[in-house]
């Protein structure tokens, strides 16, 4: 028990720091309630590389490179860097596309879901409920013997691919390479970003925290239901407390905050409620009318995220961390997320602040059926 307490102390501290940074990143330049969002940022990266051409969401987000490189450095330092792979990469690629489609319909990864709640967006709770249901379905499959197969050791250079890729893309960002497309319209999500170096440092710090504490926004719920282990969940709770307190203290909920602090160039005003929240469903028209089905699709899209991520062994953030640790299957999953981001934008599956995409419902339905099929079909008889 004492070792649980001492470990839990660290993840609570890590969660508080992570949540605080996630809230502050908005004041420092990132979009509202999107200080850190792995899904949104990978979609923006897909746009910067012209895998999709939705002009409002194109930017090479340095935070992602920080996650990968922070985890890479930390795992090297703690002798946990282990190049490995070969556990159904193509299934993982497709599952990652499904998770991304869910995240693009909901508008955020599970980390952003927590940040949305911490910024007053109560519709985040609909997503959280969906996520938990998805995790429970995932646990059902796990107990049935679901597995994507064993990994094996791979050559060192293979494990270096993702960190090198992250480094190269960061250099392209710093030299403002002409091969990249960036959002130019003022006020669009892609135009809102922190200084690239600050973004990298934010990512490195979070990468260190998550690598050391094993923080995972999907694993937290999985462990609660699977093994009654509340270690990861305590990190999630700390994250929300950190973000919520920070938003109040720095005045993001209006007034001048508790101490009149001015923490960044952007003024942010959040409010509690289900509608008129930054870049989130449900969309409400000028009279405040909403289509109620948006709640159902928010719930279902995040069920896909919960289920898919449970089958893959971690949330999108955790995936970037595992890729940094040398897990090449996680590297494939990142490519799947990027492909999923492109698919969601190109095929009008993704939602936006103006409501659901034309084919959002189809996207979620196909992704859900695929994840369920994989859950049923991929099982190994135990020895």
């Amino acid at each position, binding site marked *: 028990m004492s070792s649980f307490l001492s470990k839990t102390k660290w993840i609570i501290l890590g969660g508080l720091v992570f949540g605080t940074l996630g809230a502050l990143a908005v004041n420092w330049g990132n979009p509202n309630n999107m200080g850190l969002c792995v899904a949104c940022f990978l979609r923006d990266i897909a746009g910067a590389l012209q895998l999709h051409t939705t002009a409002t969401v194109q930017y090479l987000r340095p935070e992602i490179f920080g996650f990968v490189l922070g985890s890479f450095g930390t795992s090297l330092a703690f002798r946990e860097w282990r190049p490995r792979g070969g556990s159904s990469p193509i299934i993982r690629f497709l599952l990652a596309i499904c998770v991304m489609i869910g995240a693009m319909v909901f508008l955020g990864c599970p980390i952003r879901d927590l940040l949305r709640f911490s910024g007053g967006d109560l519709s985040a709770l609909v997503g959280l409920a969906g996520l938990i249901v998805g995790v429970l379905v995932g646990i059902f499959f796990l107990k049935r013997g679901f597995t994507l197969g064993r990994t094996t050791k791979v050559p060192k250079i293979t494990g270096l691919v993702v960190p090198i890729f992250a480094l190269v893309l960061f250099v392209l960002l710093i030299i403002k390479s002409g091969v990249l497309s960036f959002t130019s319209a003022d006020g669009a999500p892609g135009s809102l970003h922190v200084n690239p170096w600050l973004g990298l440092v934010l990512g490195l710090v979070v990468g260190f925290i998550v690598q050391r504490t094993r923080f995972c926004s999907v*694993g937290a719920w999985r462990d609660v239901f699977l093994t009654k282990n509340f270690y990861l969940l305590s990190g999630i709770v700390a994250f929300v407390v950190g973000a919520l307190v920070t938003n109040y203290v720095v005045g993001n909920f209006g007034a001048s905050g508790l101490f009149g602090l001015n923490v960044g160039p952007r003024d942010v005003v959040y409010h509690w409620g289900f509608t008129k929240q930054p870049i989130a469903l449900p969309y409400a028209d000028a009279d405040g009318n909403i289509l109620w089905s948006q709640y159902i699709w928010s719930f279902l899209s995040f069920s896909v995220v919960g289920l898919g991520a449970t089958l893959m062994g*971690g949330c999108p953030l955790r995936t970037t961390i595992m890729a940094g640790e040398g897990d090449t299957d996680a590297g494939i999953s990142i490519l799947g997320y990027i492909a999923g981001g492109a698919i969601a934008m190109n095929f009008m599956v993704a939602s936006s602040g103006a409501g659901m995409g034309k084919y959002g419902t189809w996207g979620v339905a196909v992704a859900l059926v695929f994840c369920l099929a994989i859950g049923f079909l991929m099982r190994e008889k135990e020895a």
Partner: protein
Amino acid sequence: MIEVDVRGLSCPIPVVRAQKAMATHPKEILYVMVDSSVAREHIENLAKKGVLRQR
């Protein structure tokens, strides 16, 4: 002694396998082979809980 080889399996499958083995062989000593520190931590936690529950 029951051997459970969970090397190469990704989280949380090592824990699921260990949990199943604990349930089917409650009186036996389990020997779980892991190859990642995450899986090791997870299974250590599980083992400690198991001991507490048996008492």
